[in-house]
């Protein structure tokens, strides 16, 4: 390596100081000016967190939020060169530090994850849409859907309620989150377990709708096919109107 160890150490000390403020010797530095670097860098991290996690920022006590962000800034080595992606590391960091328990915020990981997903879906690279046609007869066809989506499971309904209300409603919540093609806006739909099964199988695109219905009857022990179909079609039409269901393959 062309860089001498001593020079490397100076750079490393400086960078380390910027993150945790520890007064390591930096040769020839103007001491009174060093804090400007800490302030400027911390502001980048702080702003990125507040922009990416506006709900968390709003509802979590300021002192706790500041401490979490500050610890992240000080202790975590950000590996992401694109600033907009860095908040995902904050989410992982909070998990690794077990902050939900430490600060008594049971909804914390779900909320950070939900807010991050919104940004990720909004920004992610375009995915090629499948070929599809419009028809009234869906039953015997494979349904085509918007590929720019994710289906996730949450423990707390942070997508439906204010965080501290959601904290009392631990359960299994399924969420379809997708990006509208034209506007680029991110939308979500709350799904029951049964309809999550339906949508996941539609996405796999190996079976016709009729075949999936038959599986549902069997797996969920349902007798009333007609009611299942009626409810499923209501959901699918709604999702079609909202830009998730496209048509049939």
């Amino acid at each position, binding site marked *: *390596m*062309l*860089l*001498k160890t*001593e*020079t*490397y150490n*100076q*750079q*490393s000390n*400086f*960078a*380390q100081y*910027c*993150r945790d403020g520890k007064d390591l010797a*930096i*040769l*020839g*530095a*103007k001491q009174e*000016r*060093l804090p*400007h*670097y800490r302030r*400027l*860098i911390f502001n*980048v*991290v702080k702003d990125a967190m507040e922009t990416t996690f506006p709900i968390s920022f709003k509802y979590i006590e300021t002192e706790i939020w500041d401490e979490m962000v500050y610890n992240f800034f000080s202790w*975590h*080595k*950000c*590996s*992401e*060169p*694109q*600033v*907009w992606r*860095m908040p995902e590391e904050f989410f992982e960091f909070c998990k690794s530090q077990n902050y939900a328990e430490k600060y008594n915020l049971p909804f914390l990981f779900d909320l950070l994850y939900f807010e991050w997903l919104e940004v990720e*879906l*909004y*920004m*992610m*690279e*375009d*995915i090629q849409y499948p070929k599809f046609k419009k028809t009234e007869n869906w039953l015997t066809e494979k349904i085509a859907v918007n590929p*720019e989506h994710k289906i996730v499971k949450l423990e707390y309904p942070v997508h439906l309620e204010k965080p501290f209300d959601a904290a009392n409603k631990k359960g299994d919540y399924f969420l379809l989150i997708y*990006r509208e093609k034209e*506007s*680029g*806006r991110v939308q979500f739909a709350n799904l029951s377990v049964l309809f999550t099964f339906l949508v996941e199988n539609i996405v796999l695109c190996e079976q016709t709708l009729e075949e999936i219905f038959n599986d549902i009857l069997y797996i969920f022990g349902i007798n009333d096919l007609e009611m299942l179909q009626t409810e499923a079609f209501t959901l699918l039409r709604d999702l079609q109107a909202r830009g998730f269901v496209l048509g049939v393959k």
Partner: protein
Amino acid sequence: MTIKTGIGFRKDFAEEFLSGSVLKPGFVELAPENWMNIGGFWKKKLNQLAEMYPIISHGLSLSIGSPEELDMNFLKNVKNFLKEYNIEIYSEHLSFSKCDNAHLYDLLPIPFREDAVKHVAQRIKQVQDYLGQQIAIENVSYYTPVAAEMDEATFVSQIAEEADCKLLLDVNNVYVNAFNHNYDAKTFINNLPLERVAYIHMAGHTKVAPDLIIDSHGEAIIDPVYELFEWTLEKIKPVPVLLERDFNIPELDELQGELNNLKKIMKNKWGTKKPLRTSPNRRNKKETYN
């Protein structure tokens, strides 16, 4: 002879900007890391932008001054981005923003030392070999030297010569550094290999203490920086000039006013010929900057 002024494209004023009603820059600058590997709404806006203006890129996260290895995966993404939007100028800061594999998202001064010159020059060469083009490195503003053993102008010049790269001369940064570190701005500029200047930045700054200016990009350009710019133009060949404004964004006609000021000085110093007409950056179509 080309008189081209540009402005950084910011999401804050994207809509108004893309309407093209007030701001009429000759090109736009953007940071590849803010725009590469994205889709959706902003990708559409970017494509729209590329149809309207030539693009110059100015990176943030390459961290050319890092002690550790270059992030080749990142560089691959940059290369693809430059190709997709037919971007000819890729510039980066002569600083480090990553150390011990931790990104800091700010520009830290590299120790002005002999071994750092060799190390950084070798990394620039590696980048240029990989991209198949010269890059331009920018003199950054800094608030404290770190383990310096030579002056800044020598450091910048030796790296540029050894790496055989271009220079992005940020005139405001020269002014800021000269003020903060008590040196003469004109002597500094005179000591640079000015034939390598491929691009110029102009910006405003913020004085936070009697002896300290922060390079905030949050104010209008001040007269002494215009004067230094005017003085500098006599010494270099015509290159594109960018107005940097990142914070405290005023009405766009104020920014256009600053662009007009710059253009007036450029015309005065570099000739009165009209700029060569440049077609917008249709993707994958050749576009030249001379």
